[in-house]
Each structure stands twice: as C-alpha cells, then as structure tokens.
C-alpha cells in the first residue's frame, strides 16, 4: 500500500477507484465498487500518513463508497412493489456510469498519446527566412488577448474627461464664413453663429473672428437690452 501511494499520482478519487478496480481485475459494477471500498479507505490513510493533503473530493467519494457497500451488505428484504426506493440503488449505478465514462476518456487520452506528436516525434523546418525573424508583433488567439485584457483593465471606473479634437478652423476662414452669412441675410445674431454644439475651439474662433470684423469696421454689434440677443449688422 505504501508502494501504491508513493508510486502513483492519482488524478482524483475516480482515478484511484478505477486503479483499484483494475488492479483487482474486476469489471466496473456496484459489486466491484464495494469490494475495493476498504482498499480505497486504506489508501486515504496512507496518504494521510505521508502528510499528503487529502482533497475533499476523496472524502466525499469515501462516504459514497461506504454507503453503497452498506446497502449491498444489508439482507435482501422482500421487495415491496409498492415502495419505491430507487434512490440508493441509483447512487451505485450513477457511480458505475461515471467510472465507465471516465475510463473511456482515460483510454482516449492514452490513444492520443500514441500519435506522433509535433515536437516530440515529428519536427517542422527550423529554417525561417531572415525577413521573418525581424517582424515584430504577436499573433494572438482569444486566450492570450484576454490575458492582456486582464493586465490592462483595472477595476477603476473611467472618469469622464474632456477631449478636444484638433480642427482645421482658422480665424481667417471663419471671417469669410461670417461675411458670407451676412451677404445672404441683412443681419444675424451671435447665438445663431454658435448653434450646433460647437467645440470650445470653434466658439473661440468665432468670437475672435467677430472681434476682428468689428475692429476693421466690417460689422457692428448691437445689443438692445441687457442679456438680450447680440445682433450682428454689416457696416454700411
């Protein structure tokens, strides 16, 4: 038993159970499970003696095994067809199914391991054109992309910040635009020139253009009352 624990690394309780069934040349069935229950428990004791931490999975399995075994040891009572008592039988049967399924995948794993593997039995060309090596950057799949996401995205909420896009808007251009507007209409209002949610830069440029036009006496600004609309009139 000491040998068993030392030599084998088990992939969990199902693996250990399968190992014991196999070692005793049994077929997977509830009887076999009950037959290896003691060995299973002894192995857990051995693990404990080796100061190996026994995962909860093993203990849950131990409880299941004891339960199944105790069911089988009970004298077979006269079956009362009226009483449905399948739940306990199901536990044994369910474990048998799980063991069979897991065994199938263990076999599949072994089958896969027999393939000639890249970098183990077969190798691709070591030669890579010189140009290839210089190319920088990563070819990523979703998993490796998510790894970057994990590193970059901290939980801090994003603060709302302001950003100004550089716009190709010069004062000279704006002057021409204002002149055009005044040429088609006899007058305008400052508010109208600042319609459409302009950026701060646009506002500044518009104001500068108007001040410039006032300075060179192309327009006049008139405000009839306090806080009233500021009218723009061409100087005639």
């Amino acid at each position, binding site marked *: 038993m000491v040998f068993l624990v030392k*030599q*084998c690394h088990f*992939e*969990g*309780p*199902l*693996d250990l159970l*399968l*190992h014991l069934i*196999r*070692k005793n*040349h049994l*077929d997977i069935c509830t009887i076999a499970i009950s037959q290896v229950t003691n060995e299973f428990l002894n192995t857990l004791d051995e693990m404990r003696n080796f100061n190996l931490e026994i*995962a909860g*999975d093993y203990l849950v*399995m131990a409880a299941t095994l004891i339960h199944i075994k105790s069911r089988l040891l009970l004298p077979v009572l006269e079956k009362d067809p009226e009483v449905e008592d399948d739940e306990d039988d199901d536990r044994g049967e369910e474990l048998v199914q*799980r063991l069979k*399924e*897991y*065994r*199938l*995948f*263990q*076999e*599949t*794993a*072994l*089958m*896969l*391991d027999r*393939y*000639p*593997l*890249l*970098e*183990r*039995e*077969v*190798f*691709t*060309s070591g*030669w*890579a*054109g010189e140009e*290839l090596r210089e190319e920088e950057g990563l070819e990523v*799949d*979703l*998993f*490796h992309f*998510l790894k970057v996401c994990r590193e970059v995205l901290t939980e801090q909420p994003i603060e709302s910040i302001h950003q100004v896009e550089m716009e190709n808007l010069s004062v000279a251009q704006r002057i021409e635009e204002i002149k055009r507007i005044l040429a088609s209409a006899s007058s305008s209002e400052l508010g109208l020139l600042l319609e459409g949610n302009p950026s701060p830069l646009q506002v500044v440029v518009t104001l500068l253009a108007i001040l410039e036009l006032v300075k060179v006496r192309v327009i006049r600004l008139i405000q009839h009352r306090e806080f009233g609309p500021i009218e723009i009139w061409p100087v005639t």
Partner: protein
Amino acid sequence: MDTAELAAVIESLIFAAEKPLRLGQISELMEVDRNSVQAALNVLDEKYNRLPGGIQLAEVAEGFQFRTRPEYAFWVRRAQKRRMFRLSRAALEILAIVAYRQPITRGEMEQIRGVDCDGALRTLLEKKMVRLCGKKEAPGRPLLYGTSSFFLETFGLRDLKELPDLRQIQQLFPEGKGPRVDE
C-alpha cells in the same frame, strides 16, 4: 506554368511557410485553379511520401506542411538537445474530453474527471491547444472550450473527423486491460 514548375514553387512555399498551407490559400496566392494545385500537390506527395527519405509532406489542420518522419525522431531530438515535449496525463485527459465533447464547459470536464481541471486546462490554453469558443446558454453563461487548429497540427490530424470514434477506442482496450495497469 506546367505542373512540374508549379510543384516546385508550391514546394518552396510550403517549406517557407510557418503554418500549414491550405490548398485554397495556394490557389489564391498563385492565381491558379484548385485542380492545378491539386495536380502539383500529387507530384509532391509522390516525391516525399511514396519515396523513402527523411522528410514527409503531411496534411494537417486542413493544410500541407513538411515534417520530419517519426522514425527519425530519436536522431532529431538528439541533435537538438531539447527537452522532450510531453503532455501530462491530466492534460491528455482534458484534451481527450474536449476533443470529443466540444464545445464543453470547465464544469462539465470536472464532472467527468471528478477532479479540478483548472491548472491543466490553463496550460492547454497557454499552449494554444485548447481555445475559448463562446459561452454556454445556461445560468451564469459559463465559458465554452474546444480544440484549436494547433491541436490538429500537434497530433498531425487533417481534421477532427480523423479521430477514431469513441466506440473504436473502447475496442482498443479490451475489458479489464485498462490503460494503466501498474508497471
């Protein structure tokens, strides 16, 4: 371009490519119809796979790639002094489950193996053998996993259909003689 010359160009393309080249890619790249590419590939198949030699033309992950022949693995490994690549038993079991039950959640894998799969699964993701493929329409929308094209490359498979079905595998291991009788 005649078939011989086309074969020579394709030979150099496959040789220089980092990944297996698909027939369609070659056809598109060279602006040559698929039948001509196939004819040229047949020439290469003859040259590398019918005649003896150290190199084979393998059809993997739906593409073509030159590879050393497995019978010379010993010498190549010896020459490269590299640590032998191996997959742990846990990794192989998880690959087996993912290959046959994909798309599958981690919880479902753990249900089959009866044990936590976290570490080995992450290694397989790291190695690009397993990939994330969406979320399951179930409470909590758990992540789904599947095999990648690099899985096919590693195992030298053209596609997943090349894997034997589970019933055949069962016959490989007659009842009682399980995969791991203790040595």
